[in-house]
């Protein structure tokens, strides 16, 4: 087919462009993902003990997860549209992770020398980084399907942002049942779990986001 004929075909009856926005669907999927992760966590384990509601650990975990979720949702919102700049959103994400690493390091330094390792490992060091990516999987798939309906042009980073968002939501749900109360534990193992989710997104992006 020659290009002039193609253009004539596209233009005739084209009508006005209907603008599309990702925000509402993104919020819906994020909310559903958060509820799903909480429900699965509560199905498998007990709610955190009453005492933790007044401690710092639970709220640190939730604040960390929600800050990452908000910044990665913003990032994905940029990456779903051609030509929009995602760099400012990425800067916020890096700042959130670095702040958490900073708080975590300080908390480890405050622990007496002989107890540092048990403090960091806690009881669930090997559960948390696997549970978060697993929990995040359904949310990640929904987010990738949603993003694909728009026009992502950088599939790897868009996948990464989707994974980061799904992982943060999974971490928030998981935190409600996680008894670990060491900030150093959160900084290390939660971050690792969330980054694994983001890595899954980055791997899946170039395949699943093509349009």
């Amino acid at each position, binding site marked *: *087919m020659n*290009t*002039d004929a*193609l*253009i*004539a075909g*596209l*233009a*005739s*009856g*084209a*009508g*006005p*462009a*209907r*603008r*599309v926005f990702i925000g509402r669907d993104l919020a819906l999927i994020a909310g559903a993902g958060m509820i799903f992760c909480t429900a699965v966590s509560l199905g498998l384990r007990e709610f955190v003990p009453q005492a933790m509601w007044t401690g710092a650990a639970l709220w640190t975990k939730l604040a960390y997860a929600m800050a990452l979720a908000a910044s990665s949702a913003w990032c994905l919102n940029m990456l*779903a*549209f*051609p*030509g*929009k700049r995602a760099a400012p959103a990425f800067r916020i994400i890096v700042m959130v992770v670095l702040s958490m690493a900073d708080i975590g390091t300080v908390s480890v330094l405050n622990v007496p020398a002989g107890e540092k390792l048990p403090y960091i490992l806690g009881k669930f060091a090997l559960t948390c980084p696997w549970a978060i990516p697993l929990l995040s999987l359904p949310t990640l798939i929904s987010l990738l399907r949603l993003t694909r309906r*728009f*026009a992502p*042009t*950088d599939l790897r980073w868009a996948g990464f942002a989707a994974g980061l968002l799904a992982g943060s939501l999974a971490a928030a749900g998981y935190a409600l049942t996680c008894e670990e109360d060491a900030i150093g534990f959160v900084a290390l193992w939660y971050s690792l779990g969330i980054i694994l989710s983001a890595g899954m997104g980055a791997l899946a992006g*170039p395949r699943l986001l*093509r*349009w």
Partner: protein
Amino acid sequence: MDKVDRFAAALRPLWVRAQSGDEAAYAQALHLIAGRLRSYFRRRLSSLSDETEDLVQETLLALHAKRGTHDPALPVSNWVFAIAGYKLVDFWRRHGRREALHQPLDVTDDDLLVYETGVDVAAGQDIRVLLDTLPAPQRRAIVLTRLEGLSMSEASRRSGVSVSALKVQVHRGLKQLMVMVRTPQ
């Protein structure tokens, strides 16, 4: 103003009208974009020039299907180039896979087909035999540019064929030769 700026400035007013439903402006905008895309892709696909027009059309279809994703706050040229860049990378990825099975013609063949008298007479004769099986225009194009080593424009002047037609003839001829070399006789 350079080429990209001129393109952006010409496109902007047309695009505003097109997005609000003016079909004539939309057709005009797409023509403008098609022209710009043609040179954008041609520069990046020099060895595969036949594919340029396919890619232009594919990108126009993508722009049309996704025109609701353009935010009026963003220059439309940025939006167009972001999608064109994506389509180009996607094209390379698809081709990378397919082409990996073939072996790129333009890299190996330059070494294979350089004609030096006395160096390897047998190879020279083999090439002549193979060349004789090609259609005359392709054979002439390859002899002039690859064996005699003329530049495209010199070869074009010598043979009276346009540069772009010569390129196509060389490309097709080499492809044909590769097929024959690969097929066990």
